[in-house]
């Protein structure tokens, strides 16, 4: 006999309904908790941006590490700092771990910071007034405003070839001074001294990424061949004699310091290379933005040596290329930009510039030289291109000119 027991089944169904309700309530609770967590995380990301904004507002290149309650309500705490990294600075901001979700790591934003540039500071060309005019020949093109010697600009002939353009300069012309704008020599010297750390490890396991939140890692030796090393982050590679960067080497955001730095043809990466004697960038090498190539002739270098920075054909550099001397010499240091090579950014030369390639951005130099098999021409440009409009308005240069005069900007997000 089957008992009806309606009350028993009703209790069973009531229990099911209770369980279902409990499940729905729990689901809603977790949904709310997740939503609250997301809103909190979004505010933390805004706080990181706020922290970096405060660091950019501070004109100094370094700001000591500090804890900061952003809005004074004890729940927007950040840790902030800024420190120099070569000719740029690194700014970082980090949140405190979320007490409601301690398993989650703290949020962090790290940026490579430089100085914004502008049209008045960065004309297409600034050629110091050495009482000699600038002569153009071949397919040479200058686009943008220029500052030239009082002697002006004229059509020239090199190897029997005259100027083939319609107009000498596609932009305004003003007079320059006898010297190029003053370079921040003291600051550069300080930076070089700071980078020449007396201790360092002779080798680093590869690949290695050193976070910009950690301390600097120094790779040091008398003469270093980087071979197939894959290094990125807060690493300074320094040699007392030379550094050889191979085609297979992978470098990202690192700094190289040595008397001689040789970058093999076909290399690709992003770096700041500071040499005191010789710096050569091989054919078709590609240095990504923001890179810096600097030849700094110091008192330590032999005075009679010819110091030069050579960018070989079809190489491309995005960033700053500069050459200057701390000491007077009868054989001025020089920068050679070979045919087909492109520099997108700034070129600043305290000595002679032999420009056969293209500069999309700004050229500042004391004098042009042009060597041909038959002769050496002074202040001549042959088949060279200087185009200021080729530089993106978002370009952010390193701290080179007028420290503090222009707002700081993020050049690259590192983490």
């Amino acid at each position, binding site marked *: *006999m*089957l*008992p*009806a*027991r*309606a*009350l028993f*089944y*009703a*209790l069973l*169904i*009531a229990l099911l*309904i*209770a369980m*279902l*309700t409990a499940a*729905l*309530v729990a689901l*809603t609770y977790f*949904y*709310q908790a997740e*939503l*609250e967590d997301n*809103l909190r995380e*979004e*505010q933390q990301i*805004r*706080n990181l*941006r*706020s*922290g970096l*904004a*405060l660091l*950019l*507002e*501070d*004109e100094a290149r370094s700001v000591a590490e500090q804890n900061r309650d*952003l*809005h004074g309500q004890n729940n*927007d705490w950040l840790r902030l700092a800024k420190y120099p990294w070569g000719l740029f600075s690194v700014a970082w901001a980090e949140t405190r771990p979320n007490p409601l979700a301690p398993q989650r790591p703290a949020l962090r934003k790290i940026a490579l910071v430089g100085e*914004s540039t*502008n*049209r*008045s500071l960065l004309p297409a060309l600034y050629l110091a007034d050495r009482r000699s005019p600038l002569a153009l020949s071949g397919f040479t093109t200058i686009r943008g405003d220029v500052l030239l010697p009082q002697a002006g600009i004229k059509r020239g002939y090199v190897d029997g070839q005259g100027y083939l353009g319609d107009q000498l300069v596609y932009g305004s012309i003003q007079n320059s001074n006898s010297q190029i704008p003053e370079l921040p020599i003291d600051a550069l010297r300080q930076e070089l001294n700071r980078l020449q750390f007396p201790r360092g490890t002779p080798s680093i396991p590869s690949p290695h990424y050193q976070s910009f939140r950690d301390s600097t890692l120094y790779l040091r030796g008398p003469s270093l061949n980087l071979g197939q090393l894959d290094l990125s982050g807060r690493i300074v590679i320094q040699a007392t004699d030379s550094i050889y960067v191979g085609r297979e080497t992978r470098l990202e955001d690192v700094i190289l310091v040595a008397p001689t730095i040789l970058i093999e043809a076909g290399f690709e990466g992003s770096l700041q290379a500071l040499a005191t004697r010789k710096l050569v960038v091989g054919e078709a090498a590609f240095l990504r933005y923001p890179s810096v190539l600097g030849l700094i002739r110091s008192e330590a270098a032999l005075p009679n040596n010819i110091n030069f920075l050579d960018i070989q054909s079809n190489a491309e550099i995005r960033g700053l290329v500069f050459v200057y001397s701390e000491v007077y010499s009868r054989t001025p240091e020089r920068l050679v930009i070979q045919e087909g090579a492109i520099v997108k950014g700034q070129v600043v030369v305290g000595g002679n510039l032999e420009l056969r390639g293209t500069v999309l951005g700004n050229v500042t130099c004391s004098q042009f030289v042009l060597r041909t098999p038959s002769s050496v021409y002074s202040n001549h440009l042959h088949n060279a291109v200087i185009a200021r409009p080729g530089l993106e*308005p978002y370009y952010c240069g390193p701290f080179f000119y007028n420290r503090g*005069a*222009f*707002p700081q900007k993020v050049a690259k997000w590192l983490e």
Partner: protein
Amino acid sequence: MVGVKLKASTLVEPLAAMTLLMVAFGIGMSIYLNILSSDHLERTSKANLYLQQFLEESKREGLFYDDEKVIGGYRLSRTIEPAGEYGDAYLINIEAEDIDGNFLHRVKEIVYVRTGPNETE
């Protein structure tokens, strides 16, 4: 069905069972609906989208002044205060309320607005 016998129940038993089910279902649904109706978060998250939109627009367009507007049934009010130590950073504070004036959510961000001489290209 010849051999099967169902034991009859009284009228009271199914009535009690039905009442019990109705009560259980009613209590369950009322708890759940009560939780849903008291939930600010759905409105908060929707308001958050409008707040973010307003914040991004303020930064992109450089709208660094106090303002108020109504979007999607939410009243958004933006206030700007100086922040930082050098006068080039501002705190953008945007609050959302519903039409009845109940506070829902707020977003805050400090922005750096300094431009150099002849900055524009």
